[in-house]
């Protein structure tokens, strides 16, 4: 007898989800045979908010798109604005931007590694990784003034310089962190309870990853060599010597390996940046508040993958249109597909393996009428009529 398929809804609110999103899994026994996703619960109107603010205000607003990759969003936006204005940012400013970018990658990947360890029930690793993450957070707080929203960027450069003492301190911490990361690489590949839980889970072939336009460490773990820092170098990445890490394992173990080795590469980049940092100005002295008419697309390798910003200006001091494409949007569909074939207990770690951020992703959701799935759209007039009827019937109130 053929086994029946059961539909398992997960979300919008669910203990494994840190933010609201909706998943429907078709399960046959314990095995997942189909998966669908839906999101649109986090619309905050940030793009529209940018249109009502000037470029400086929009920059700080866009920093709040995401709490982890806050520097990524401002840098992508600022790069687009600088392209429209044809500004040449001083080299020291670009180097300082890159230091922050790599520190952010370090703290984001360390956070993810801790979350991944927690999702598979390996809480000792979670605690240790997050303890070491504090080293990076402390540096970020010292050089920018805040742990989360660094606000280091400005149009035409950066706002704060680093002192020689800070430079030496960061170099010392990078040395410690490299040793710790080597140790985590050893645990990630040798600890039987961890490896046994994630090996062969959530597989996504290289062909499918490329077809579904996956980005970032998620795509690189499926052996797709894509990295904006190498493909389309921005800032001074073309001058840096670093390796593009890929893995042919195509599963969650591959994603752990890619992220851990990428962190070691980030430490190397930071060391190179601090050792070869040129002297000079950190930002352009005078930048016009009005941006000439034009449009630009900016690509940026955020910790989670490629972040794309589109800015169109109309000659005033306010942007006409700002469009944000966060990396999670590119990865979600591929992640949902990678769950197929896994067990129900693998859902949390399989979805978390892309490091999802639904708040970054959600821009606007349009509900299409789908009679087959029973989607209904209630108009404002109908809602009002029903309200009047309900109050008339139950409370005796006539409008």
């Amino acid at each position: 007898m053929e086994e029946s398929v059961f539909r398992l809804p997960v979300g919008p609110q669910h203990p494994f989800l840190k933010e609201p999103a909706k998943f429907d899994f078709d399960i046959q026994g314990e095995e997942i045979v189909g998966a669908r996703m839906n999101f649109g619960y986090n619309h905050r109107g940030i793009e529209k908010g940018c249109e009502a603010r000037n470029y400086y205000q929009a920059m700080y607003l866009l920093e709040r798109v995401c709490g982890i990759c806050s520097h990524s969003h401002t840098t992508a936006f600022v790069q687009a604005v600088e392209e429209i204005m044809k500004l040449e940012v001083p080299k020291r400013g670009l180097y300082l931007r890159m230091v922050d970018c790599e520190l952010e990658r370090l703290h984001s990947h360390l956070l993810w590694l801790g979350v991944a360890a927690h999702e598979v029930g390996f809480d000792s690793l979670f605690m240790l990784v997050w303890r070491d993450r504090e080293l990076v957070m402390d540096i970020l707080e010292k050089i920018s003034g805040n742990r989360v929203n660094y606000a280091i960027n400005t149009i035409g450069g950066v706002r704060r310089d680093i002192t020689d003492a800070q430079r030496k301190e960061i170099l010392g911490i990078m040395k410690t962190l490299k040793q710790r990361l080597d140790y985590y690489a050893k645990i990630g590949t040798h600890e039987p309870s961890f490896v046994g839980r994630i090996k062969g889970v959530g597989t996504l072939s290289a062909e499918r990853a490329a077809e579904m336009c996956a980005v970032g460490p998620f795509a690189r773990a499926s052996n797709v060599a894509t990295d904006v820092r190498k493909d389309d170098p921005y800032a001074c990445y073309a001058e840096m010597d670093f390796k593009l890490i890929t893995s042919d394992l195509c599963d969650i173990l591959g994603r752990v390996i890619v992220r851990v080795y990428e962190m070691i590469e980030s430490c190397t980049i930071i060391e190179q940046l601090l050792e070869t940092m040129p002297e000079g100005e950190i930002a352009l002295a005078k930048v016009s508040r009005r941006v000439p008419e034009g449009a630009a697309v900016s690509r940026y390798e955020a910790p989670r993958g490629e972040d794309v910003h589109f800015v169109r200006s109309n000659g005033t001091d306010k942007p006409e249109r700002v469009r944000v494409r966060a990396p999670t949007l590119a990865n979600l569909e591929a992640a949902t597909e990678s769950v197929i074939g896994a067990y129900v207990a693998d859902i949390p770690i399989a979805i978390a393996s892309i490091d999802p951020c639904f708040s970054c992703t959600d821009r606007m959701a349009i509900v299409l009428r789908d009679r087959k799935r029973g989607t209904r759209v209630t108009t404002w007039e109908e809602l009002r009529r029903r309200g009047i009827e309900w109050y008339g019937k139950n409370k005796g109130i006539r409008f």
Partner: protein
Amino acid sequence: MLKAGIFIPELLGNLGHAPATREYPFVKTPVPPGFRGTPRLRPGLCVGCKACMRDCTAEAIEIVQVPPDPNAPPPEPGTKNVGKKFKMILYLDRCVHCARCADVCPKDAIYLDEEYEMANFTRDALRLEME
């Protein structure tokens, strides 16, 4: 190559370590210099250009002119304008601590202090007037 117990030396090593956390309300963590806390006004320096008000991301700043004191003695004839006085009303519940106000101020009249315990029980208590 899998190896059981690779984690044990680290766990044993941590037994002798001091805790990595602090007992927060009793032991406060000092913030590094340059921390972006609450914006403060040096009223003597403010010229009322309202550049901070214009650029504030969260629209949390209001600069208003303080009405002149009626009891103050009139300025002596021949002296120049004694200068207008301004005060800043800061809505701390909206402030995002980006320090744009301090950056954009042409007279360095705004600075950010190192206060980080800003929570309060009522919204009114978060409306700060500085003059």
